[in-house]
Each structure stands twice: as structure tokens, then as C-alpha cells.
């Protein structure tokens, strides 16, 4: 008689880690991970050791010390006695300014060019093709430097505006001065202004925001809100009766009238630039470094956005256009109501990376002396304090944060426009 025994219970042996296919891949992954971490640790240790040998232990205390240098474009109060942290903040705001301006212009320009490239008009289509191919195939740094050089060499300097028979005159009813130091435009002023709101107290990050600006924005938002309500009501009436009441004057009125009242109440007037001393004084000074960077980044990124838009539109089946035409819609309406809304789903994801590219490319600002975060924190501060590692790390962290925030916002927008699957 035979006795049935359980199959021998296999005990775990060390060699199974390699020879048993159940464990092998895990073993290799663990080894690779340990190796990778060792490498990172060694790099980190080596850096720390070398810095210690040089007597330069990593420290961020320099951020609290007076910067000592001046910055020309300041969106917040800053002077040479402010700390380095504040200088970095000024630079960050400058980066954000050019990034936001650039993204807006590039989108408008890109969408227009992308749509026009598909135009049935041969000349328009070819001109747009030429634009896209020329612009996107030359490095953006060259466009930035070229724009700057053209502005410096071709535009008149302020002294040309002087004298009995000046070589240059101001544009647009003597209100805009175009010089090789930048463009001076009239600035909005309020005689009965509400003053400023002070944020963040006395910290290095404190800044003032004009309450007038807040009020104007609030009035605008309220206007748009009411306007949307009126449109909803008109939609309702159209649903019920088939007649759409004419509401455009009402909708325009609720936006414009309160705005005008606000402006009058605040004592709105324009401050015009005027030639005083060496430079134009008064007005808003858009420095040529800002304009060169903004323009070059916009036209460069627009070329890529144009291609993305074109791809998005071509991705929409032609049947959609034909169906819309069969319903009697005109070409402009077809594009606006049928094609673009669907194309957006294809357009948004690659558009995000173009916005990220534009923001990161803005660090080329240094080529034209635009004082962005690279110019202040990772430029002059790095040089004056000798804290290479700390400033560059901090700079990378800031760019990373900006990029992730842009991604976050755009992904949220993408969620909204993407096809809802049921």
C-alpha cells in the first residue's frame, strides 16, 4: 500500500532569486534600484563634500542680505537695499509677465495663422505656410536677438525728439513715443483713487495692489455675469416662442455703463509721456527688452501653435463641414460653431506643451538684458554672492512650479472641452 504524501514543500533557497522566474525580475529591479540610489547618494555626497572642502556649505542665508543692485523693470517696490529674495521675486514677476503676455499673443496669432493656412485663397495659404516654415526653423534665441537689434538700431533715440525740427515725432496724437529705449504709452491715472492694498505686511514678498484696479475688474466681472444672465433669458424665450429678442444693446450696456460710471467716479484720466531730461517721463514704459522678448517668443511659438491648430482642424471629418453647410451655415459660422469646438479636443494637449515651452524659453531673456528670474536670481545674485548651487536649485524649483501650475490649469480646461463619453 502506498501512502499519499503531499508534494514536498519547497523551501525557499537563495538561488531561487535568480533561477526562479517568479522572483527573477523583482531581484533585478531591486538591484537596479539600489544601484541607482547609490549613484544618486554618491553624487550628492560628493557635491556636499567638495563644497565643504571649499568652505562653502550650502546655505540660503544670502537671500536675506541686501541685493545691492538695481533692476530696471519693477512691478513691485524694489531698490538696491532690498534683500536678494525680493530681487528674485521681482524677477519672478517679470518672468510671469512676459510668459502671460506671450501665451496670449502666441495663441491669438497661432490660431489665426493656423486657420488661414487652410484658406482657399492661394496667396493667403502660401504666405502663412512661408511664415510657419521660416519662423519655426530658426532658433528662438536668434529671433530674440534680431528683434532687439532691429529696435535698437532702427528706432530713434529720445534725443531725436528734441529741438525745433526734431528727427522723430510722437505717434497717435502725440501720445505714444516709440524710441530705441522702448515704447512709452499713456498710463491710466485716477484723481480720486482708492489707494493701494498692502499684502503680506513687511515680509520680503510684500506688495501693493491698486484698489482701483480691483474695482474695475469687479465691475467688469459683474457686467459679464449680468450679460450672461440676459443671454440665458433670451435663450429661454427663444426655446418657448421661437422668437429671439434682440438683446445686444442691453448686454453691451450692462458692461459698458457701470464701467464708465466707475471711471468717472474715480476721476480717470491718461498720463501722457513727456520728454524731460534724458528720457521720456510719465506714461507706461515698455522697455525694448520686454517688447523684443515678448514679440520674438510670440511669433516663434505662434508658428508651432498654427501647426497644432491646423492639425486639429484637419482631424475633424469633412462630413461635419458638409453637414453644417447643408444646414445652411456660412463658412465663418461653420468654423466657429462646428469645427473649432471639436478641434479643440485635439488642440489642447499639445497646446499645453507649447505654453510650457514659451515659459521656459523666456529664460533666454538674458540675451537682451530683460531682468527675469534667470537674470536676477540665477544671474546677478548668483554672481554677487557666489552661491551657484543654491540659486540654480531655487531657480529650477521655481520654473518647475510655474510649469506644473500651467499644466494643472490647462489640464483642467482640457477636462472641460474633451468629449464626454457615456
Amino acid at each position: 500500500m502506498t501512502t499519499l504524501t503531499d508534494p514536498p514543500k519547497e523551501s525557499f533557497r537563495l538561488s531561487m532569486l535568480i533561477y526562479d522566474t517568479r522572483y527573477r525580475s523583482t531581484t533585478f529591479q531591486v538591484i537596479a534600484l539600489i544601484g541607482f540610489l547609490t549613484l544618486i547618494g554618491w553624487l550628492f555626497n560628493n557635491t556636499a563634500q567638495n563644497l565643504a572642502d571649499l568652505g562653502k556649505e550650502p546655505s540660503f542665508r544670502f537671500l536675506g542680505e541686501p541685493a545691492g543692485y538695481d533692476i530696471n523693470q519693477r512691478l513691485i517696490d524694489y531698490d538696491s537695499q532690498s534683500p536678494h529674495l525680493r530681487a528674485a521675486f521681482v524677477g519672478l514677476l517679470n518672468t510671469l509677465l512676459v510668459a502671460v503676455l506671450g501665451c496670449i499673443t502666441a495663441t491669438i496669432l497661432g490660431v489665426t495663422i493656423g486657420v488661414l493656412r487652410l484658406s482657399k485663397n492661394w496667396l493667403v495659404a502660401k504666405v502663412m505656410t512661408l511664415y510657419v516654415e521660416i519662423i519655426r526653423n530658426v532658433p528662438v534665441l536668434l529671433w530674440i536677438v534680431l528683434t532687439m537689434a532691429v529696435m535698437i538700431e532702427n528706432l530713434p533715440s529720445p534725443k531725436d525728439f528734441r529741438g525745433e525740427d526734431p528727427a522723430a515725432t510722437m505717434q497717435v496724437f502725440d501720445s505714444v513715443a516709440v524710441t530705441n529705449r522702448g515704447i512709452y504709452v499713456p498710463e491710466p491715472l485716477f484723481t480720486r483713487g482708492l489707494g493701494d492694498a498692502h499684502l503680506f505686511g513687511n515680509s520680503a514678498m510684500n506688495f501693493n495692489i491698486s484698489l482701483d484696479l480691483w474695482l474695475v475688474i469687479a465691475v467688469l466681472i459683474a457686467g459679464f455675469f449680468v450679460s450672461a444672465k440676459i443671454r440665458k433669458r433670451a435663450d429661454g424665450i427663444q426655446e418657448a416662442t421661437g422668437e429671439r429678442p434682440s438683446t445686444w444693446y442691453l448686454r453691451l450696456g450692462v458692461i459698458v455703463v457701470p464701467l464708465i460710471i466707475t471711471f468717472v467716479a474715480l476721476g480717470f484720466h491718461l498720463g501722457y509721456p513727456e520728454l524731460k531730461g534724458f528720457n521720456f517721463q510719465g506714461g507706461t514704459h515698455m522697455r525694448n527688452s520686454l517688447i523684443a522678448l515678448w514679440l520674438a517668443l510670440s511669433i516663434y511659438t505662434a508658428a508651432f501653435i498654427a501647426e497644432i491648430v491646423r492639425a486639429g482642424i484637419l482631424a475633424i471629418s469633412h462630413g461635419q463641414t458638409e453637414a453644417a453647410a447643408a444646414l445652411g451655415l456660412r463658412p465663418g459660422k461653420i468654423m466657429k460653431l462646428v469645427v473649432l469646438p471639436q478641434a479643440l479636443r485635439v488642440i489642447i494637449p499639445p497646446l499645453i506643451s507649447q505654453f510650457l515651452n514659451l515659459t521656459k524659453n523666456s529664460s533666454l531673456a538674458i540675451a537682451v538684458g530683460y531682468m527675469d528670474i534667470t537674470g536676477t536670481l540665477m544671474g546677478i545674485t548668483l554672481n554677487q554672492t557666489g552661491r551657484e548651487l543654491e540659486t540654480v536649485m531655487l531657480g529650477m524649483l521655481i520654473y518647475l512650479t510655474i510649469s506644473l501650475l500651467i499644466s494643472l490649469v490647462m489640464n483642467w480646461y482640457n477636462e472641460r472641452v474633451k468629449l464626454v463619453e457615456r
Partner: protein
Amino acid sequence: MKKTVFFSALTLAGLAAGAATAGTLDDVKARGKLNCGVSTGVIGFAAPDANGVWQGFDVGVCRAVAAAVLGDQNAIEFVPTTGKTRFTALASGEIDMLARNTTWTYSRDVDLKFTFVGVNYYDGQGFLVPKSLGVSSATELDGATVCIQTGTTTELNLADYFRANNMSYEPVPIETNAEAQQQFLAGACDVFTTDASGLAATRSAFEKPGDYVLLPEIISKEPLGPLVRHGDDQWGDVVRWTLNALISAEELGVNSANIAELAAAAGNNPEINRMLGTEGNLGEMLGLDADWAVRAISVGGNYGELFEKNIGENTPVGLARGLNAQWTNGGLIYSPPFR
């Protein structure tokens, strides 16, 4: 097998890290080439000539060091650096020494961990303006647009000067001297400020130098000199005493014309003998051979000759000796004795 490769890679990397900490003098000798940081191009101080050969006052110091250490004044890799990149280049070991109109300051010496080996030009910050601007003093510059090289001491002096005089200005930050010239000549800035010697050098390259004038105010002390990394005293000594040899040579009347004769045999001036190695063993103490100073001086002559040839009054730059005369002539140029 995998492990072996990994560990040997680690060991190699460790060795490489270890080797980098050996003395700079040995590194330079082993490499057979001196990596010398210079400016991106300031006529008279450091700029490539029509044949692409680097010429100038600061370049002369590099060549003297190369000749002293390697015996060949052309065994140099010139590394052009901007005001911003120069310190990182030196600290990281990309260059062995920096001879680039660099101001000796407390924080650069103490905090940035560099060793200034001496002063080869006593300078001060000045302002260059077009004559047509109608300005005769820096105190009239309220509201002016000023072109300024970033990452320099001049940037900080400028901020201090305008603050102290309660004036405002618009800084236009630029990276290189060439950019500054472009902006200044196009009238994108009213004033160009940097060390007075640099302004004179820049002006000499203008099409019409006569249309531009240096304002009388000198707003800072700018002792310019070569520098090396902290912590390698032997290498620091080599560069320091090469510079001192050039300065002493002028004081003692040793020049490119008579050096061969003086170095051939011991003469009757013991200090010259010690310096040129015909007496004593100063070269050996430095880790070099006995003829090191002879070679250094033979390259471009003594300090005075270098000055006259590159930036002196008969050159387009046209700088007077002024503070940079020998101490025996009422200047500040003074070398410790070779003893």
C-alpha cells in the same frame, strides 16, 4: 559581472575625484597647457588680433605665467569669460587663473574663496558720455539711462553712487563689452560706465572716439589683478611671483633687450641675480627651475614694457601711467623683494 562593472565604475569615479584635488601646478605641468580666463574682448587688455592671437595687458600676465611654468608662452588655452561666468569658471577648475580686469574686493577674497595674487592695474569706475549730451559732471546724470555690465562691482558702485547722491537712473544690463558698445553708440543708453581703463579701451575702438568724453568723477577704487582659487598656495605663489618678477624687473632695469645678457652670468646686483636664477635657488623653492623668471620676462618684457605696448600713451587706448607708475616714480606699483 554586473556588480564588478558597477563597482569598478565607482572606484574610477572616486579616483577621478581624488585626482582633481592634486596641486594646480602639477595639473598644469601634466596637461602641458595653462587654462587662463580672460575677458571676451577689451582692446588693450585682452582681445584677439587680426590673426586670432590673443593680445593685451592681461594676456601678457597669462603668457608670462605659461612661460615660467611650461617654458612656452603659447601653451595657453585662453578661455573668454563674461563678468558673470568668470568666477564659476575659476571655482569649478575650468580655468587655472583669471586675468580679466577683476576688482579685488573683500567678499570676493573672503566669501567667494579666491586668492588675489596682486594688483596689475589700479583703476576706478568712470562714466563715458557722448559730447552731444552736454553733461560735464556725473552729478548731472539724474534720470539718465546707464549701460552696465552685469555681475560686476561697477553695478554695485553705480547703485550706491546714485543712491548717495539722491539721483535716479535706468540701468540697462548687458553681458559683454561688444553689446555695450552697440547699445551706447545707437543711443539706447546715455552713459556707459565701467572701469576708466575699460572705458578708454572701448572708446579707442569707436569710429569717432573724439565725440565721446570721460566724465571727471571716478566713483570707486578698482584694484584689478589676477586671481586663483583659495587653498592652493603653491599655485598662488607661482602666479603672484611671476607678476612680481615683471614689476621688479622694471624697477631693477631688467627689460626684454638686456635680459639675455643679464641672465647669462651673475652680475653685480644680487637681487637681479637671485631673481634671474644666477644666484641662490628661488626657482626651486617655487617648484620651478632656475630660469623661470627669465622666461616670464622675456615674453613681453617687464611690467612697464607690457603697459606701454598694450595700453600706454602711444597706443589707441592711450592711458597714462598715473597710479600705475613704479613706487619710485610716485605710483603704487610695488613688488616685495626677491630675497
